[in-house]
Each structure stands twice: as structure tokens, then as C-alpha cells.
């Protein structure tokens, strides 16, 4: 953990980090890109989760929706990680101790783990249930967990600014 702390301080004190932190517009612009890319990421995942719960788009098969939506989610993820890393770079020393940031990272790992479990287990046999209007219980549980975890990532992310 000491290593992580030193790493954060090094980023914080680097000239690039300082430049971002002290800039008038760069930080805000990156922050706006971060919010929009999270909207893309979470919005598209939520559509798939709500479909598996049987709340929307019932006539559309889960795997055909997943094929359409997941590339968008991945694009959102890539942009939010890149923009998020720049924001972190500017504030790294403060982020290291920020409870909002720490919570966000934990929730992010859990959301990733949840997606991994879904794709390596129940989704492998999707052809057996993809047309059902309401997906099987295990798929619904991961859908609910996904909504809760990604929602938590947004909530914790917004909380960062308040600590």
C-alpha cells in the first residue's frame, strides 16, 4: 500500500498532473467527457439488464440485444477509463485517501466480476433461454446486481467531489 501511495504522490507532483489540476478548462472538459462516456457505458448495460428482467424489449432476443449493445458499452468503458485516468492523474494524492474514490474502485471491480461471472456461466447457454420474455433466475440476479453495482459506481463517483 505504501508503494501505491508513493505512486499517487508521484503522479500528483508530475508536471502533467499539475498542469491538468491548474488548468482552467482541460479538467472540466475531461470531466464532461467522463460523465458522457459513463452515460454510454451504464445506459447501454442498463438496457440489457432491464431486458433480462423482462421490463423492456421482450420481443427481442437477449443475445441479439447483447450483440448490439455490448460494443457500445465497451466503447463507453474505454473512454471512461482513459478520461478517468487523466482525472486521477491530476488529483492522485487526494484520490488515494478519498472514501468516494475508494468505494468507486471497489464497486467497479465488483461490477467487472459480476459481468465476468455472467459471461462465463449463464450467458454461455444463452441460446436455450434468449427468447424467453423473462430470463432465468440466475440471469435476473446478475442483471439486478449489475444495475445496483453500476448505479453505485455513479453514486460513489459523484461523491468524490464532496469529500
Amino acid at each position, binding site marked *: 500500500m505504501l508503494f501505491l501511495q508513493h505512486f499517487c504522490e508521484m503522479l500528483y507532483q508530475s508536471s502533467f498532473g499539475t498542469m491538468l489540476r491548474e488548468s482552467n478548462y482541460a479538467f472540466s472538459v475531461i470531466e464532461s467527457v467522463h460523465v458522457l462516456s459513463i452515460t454510454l457505458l451504464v445506459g447501454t448495460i442498463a438496457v440489457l439488464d*432491464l431486458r433480462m428482467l423482462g421490463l423492456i424489449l421482450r420481443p*427481442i432476443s437477449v443475445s441479439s440485444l447483447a450483440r448490439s449493445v455490448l460494443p457500445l458499452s465497451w466503447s463507453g468503458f474505454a473512454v471512461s477509463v482513459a478520461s478517468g485516468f487523466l482525472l486521477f492523474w491530476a488529483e492522485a494524492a487526494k484520490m488515494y485517501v478519498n472514501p468516494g474514490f475508494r468505494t468507486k474502485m471497489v464497486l467497479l471491480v465488483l461490477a467487472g466480476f459480476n459481468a465476468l461471472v455472467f459471461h462465463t456461466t449463464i450467458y454461455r447457454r444463452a441460446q436455450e433461454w434468449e427468447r424467453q420474455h423473462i430470463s432465468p433466475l440466475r440471469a435476473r440476479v446478475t442483471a439486478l446486481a449489475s444495475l445496483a453495482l453500476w448505479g453505485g459506481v455513479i453514486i460513489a463517483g459523484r461523491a468524490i467531489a464532496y469529500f
Partner: protein
Amino acid sequence: MSLYSWFMALARSPLGHAMQTSRWGFAVVEMVHLLGLALLGGSVLIVDLRLLGVILKGESAITLGRDASRLLMGSLTVMVLSGIALLSEESGKCYYSPAFRWKMALLAAAVVFYFTLHRQALLRVQSGKPTFWPRIAAVVSLLLWLSVGVAGRAIGLL
């Protein structure tokens, strides 16, 4: 009553008072506003990308539009209600903020467009291939909703 006095009345209302004095009130409502944004963004994207012919080409645009509409109306309701609470905290500032005025004008344009030309475009596409006008409608819709978000982000910066 002038528009300004409505803004002032909102600031002096019990809601405004609660938002101005509570420690976490503004933060919590902002979080709700952002959760609504994610759902709204998702619903706008799937319909407009279908109109553009990028995703779900084989599915009926009407079914997609109807379900996405429910999601959009639900999330828009959450965003408007939480937005009113956010406004009550700093309505004096918002009244004079160019970003806030732009956001409201763009929001009105986006909603009106959604219920008129955009809806027509969905009906025209049905389950067929996207044609020129529906594609234009999708691009206009995406740009309008995006600009509402960008103007909203600017309220806190300008």
C-alpha cells in the same frame, strides 16, 4: 407573476430551504439526476442507432421505440423532478446563467422533436431499412440530447 418571481418562490419554498441547509441534500439529488441521465442516454441511443441502421436492423423499430419511450419517459420524470430540487438550491444563480437558459431551451426542443418528427420517423421505418429522413431525425435527436447534457454540465462551470 414574472418568471423571476417564480424562481424566487422556488428558492423560498420548503424544498428550497431543505436543499440549501442540508449537508448532503444537493449531493444525493445530483446522484439521482445522474442515474436518470444514464437511463435516458441508454434509451435515446438504442432508438437512434436503430433509426440510423447501426444496431438491431432486423427488429421492429416500432416495438423498440415503444419500449424505449417508456424508459425515456420514466428517466425524464426522474431527471425533471430531481432537476427542480437542484434548481431550488440555486435558482437565483440559474436564472441569470446562460448555460441554464440554453439547457432549458434545448430540452424543450429535444422533447418537442421527440414527440413529433422523431416519432414520425419511427413510424416510417417500421421494420424496413432506414432511409434518408429517419437517419436525419436520429442525428438531430442525438445532437439535441447531447447538447442538453453539455449545457447542463456547463451550468456548474460558467
